[in-house]
């Protein structure tokens, strides 16, 4: 075990993140090397200083009750009422109103998906589907996907591996393109649902930022050009083509997402 390697792994060792045998090697080296022992001593002193002097702030009691009150207000009875009445706010309207007053991030009106976000009679008649506006669902699915292990079900950078994986799972053929030349690495794909419909998410990344490209059948059948939006701080690009809806969601900045959308739409 060299000094460089010992010092690179010193923090992981002290934090209990190393496997025991590597820990043994570091411990052995530190016992024989004054420089590395000195680094260990500095780390231990820093930890002691932080534990003595850096407070762990507790949430003020008023914050706790304010949060509970707000959540109780947002909590609406489930789907027991008739879905077709126009009296009183529906669940999704109530949630949207609660959100509008409480969430600082402005929601952007969004043409392409806006047409799907108003619950038509057909949509609300289905009991179990997610009735939030589509753009909200997509952000939620994107956020959820970032918690391993749900991001990718078929890991591959090869579109010829991913495309056959979809067969038998969906009744449409999503576009899976290799965009590595443009800086977007294909990571894989997984099954998804959008508004109760089967969908897929093809996952790319650029500079460690994952991009989820959601694809699902388009009810209207009309093509529409790409629109870019920011929803809850996430960048989104959406369009419809060839009977499919596409929506790319990521925390990359709008410029990178625009490049991604352009690259996907570029003629081969």
């Amino acid at each position, binding site marked *: 075990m060299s000094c460089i390697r010992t010092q690179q792994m010193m923090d*992981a060792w002290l934090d209990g993140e190393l496997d025991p045998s590597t820990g043994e090697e570091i411990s052995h080296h530190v016992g024989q090397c004054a420089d590395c022992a000195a680094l260990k001593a500095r780390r231990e002193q*820093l930890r002691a200083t*932080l*534990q003595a*002097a850096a407070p762990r702030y507790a949430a003020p009691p008023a*914050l706790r009750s304010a949060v509970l009150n707000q959540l109780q207000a947002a909590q609406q009875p489930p789907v027991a009422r008739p879905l077709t009445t126009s009296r009183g706010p529906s669940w999704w309207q109530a949630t949207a109103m609660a959100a509008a007053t409480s*969430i600082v991030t402005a929601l952007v009106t969004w043409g392409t998906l806006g047409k799907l976000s108003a619950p038509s009679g057909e949509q609300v008649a289905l009991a*179990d589907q997610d009735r939030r506006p589509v753009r909200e669902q997509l952000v939620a699915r994107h956020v*959820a996907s970032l918690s391993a292990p749900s991001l990718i079900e078929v890991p591959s950078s090869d579109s010829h591996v991913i495309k056959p994986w979809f067969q038998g799972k969906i009744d449409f053929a999503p576009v899976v393109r290799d965009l590595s030349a443009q800086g977007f690495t294909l990571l894989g794909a997984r099954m998804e649902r959008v508004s109760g419909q089967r969908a897929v998410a093809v996952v790319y990344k650029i500079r460690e930022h994952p991009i989820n490209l959601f694809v699902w059948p388009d009810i209207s059948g009309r093509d529409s050009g790409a629109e870019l939006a920011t929803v809850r701080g996430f960048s989104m690009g959406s369009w419809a083509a060839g009977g499919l809806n596409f929506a790319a969601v990521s925390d990359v900045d709008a410029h990178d997402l625009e490049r991604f959308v352009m690259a996907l739409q570029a003629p081969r």
Partner: protein
Amino acid sequence: MTIPLRLSSIDANSVKSQLQQPHDHANLRRFESTVLVHLDAAYNLARWLLNDPAAAEDAVQDACIRAFRFFDDLSGPSPKAWFMAVVRNTCIDSLRSNKHHNAAHEYDEEIDGIAGAQVHDNPEQIAVRASDARWVRAAIAALPVEFREVIVLRELEEMTYKEISVIVKVPIGTVMSRLSRGRDLLSQQLGADVKRVSP
């Protein structure tokens, strides 16, 4: 270089099936018992990231609303890490949208790492100051946010590298290198003499 990190395996499916149920009357109770139990951790992170008690309260409140609305989508091994990721995103949004440009700026080795770490005090002053909580707090607050967040999550919240990587959305190796760098910077700020072997 490969780093032989120990990855703790947690049963993701049990948490997921327990939490992924439709909205019902018990939903808020379940949210309280799985997510809101981490309100102190959430506030602590927001307080350190935003350096402002009122802004931290606002951010945590917004994060709770977001988290509740996405509660059905909660998946992954750790509800605490999931919630902390929402809190952290809310804080980063707040840093970006408000005028906290100093705290939100990208880390610059030249400016922040070297110039920022100069200590002019003599050793006795350093010893006195190092025991002073205000001095320690100021040193942490002066860290660029990408180092501050991993230091707070590790030192104060005692979260694992795996959990921190989920919250900060960087690979585990990056968590490790940011912690090392952050601790070096803190030690320098606090007056310790940091000597590292150059590769």
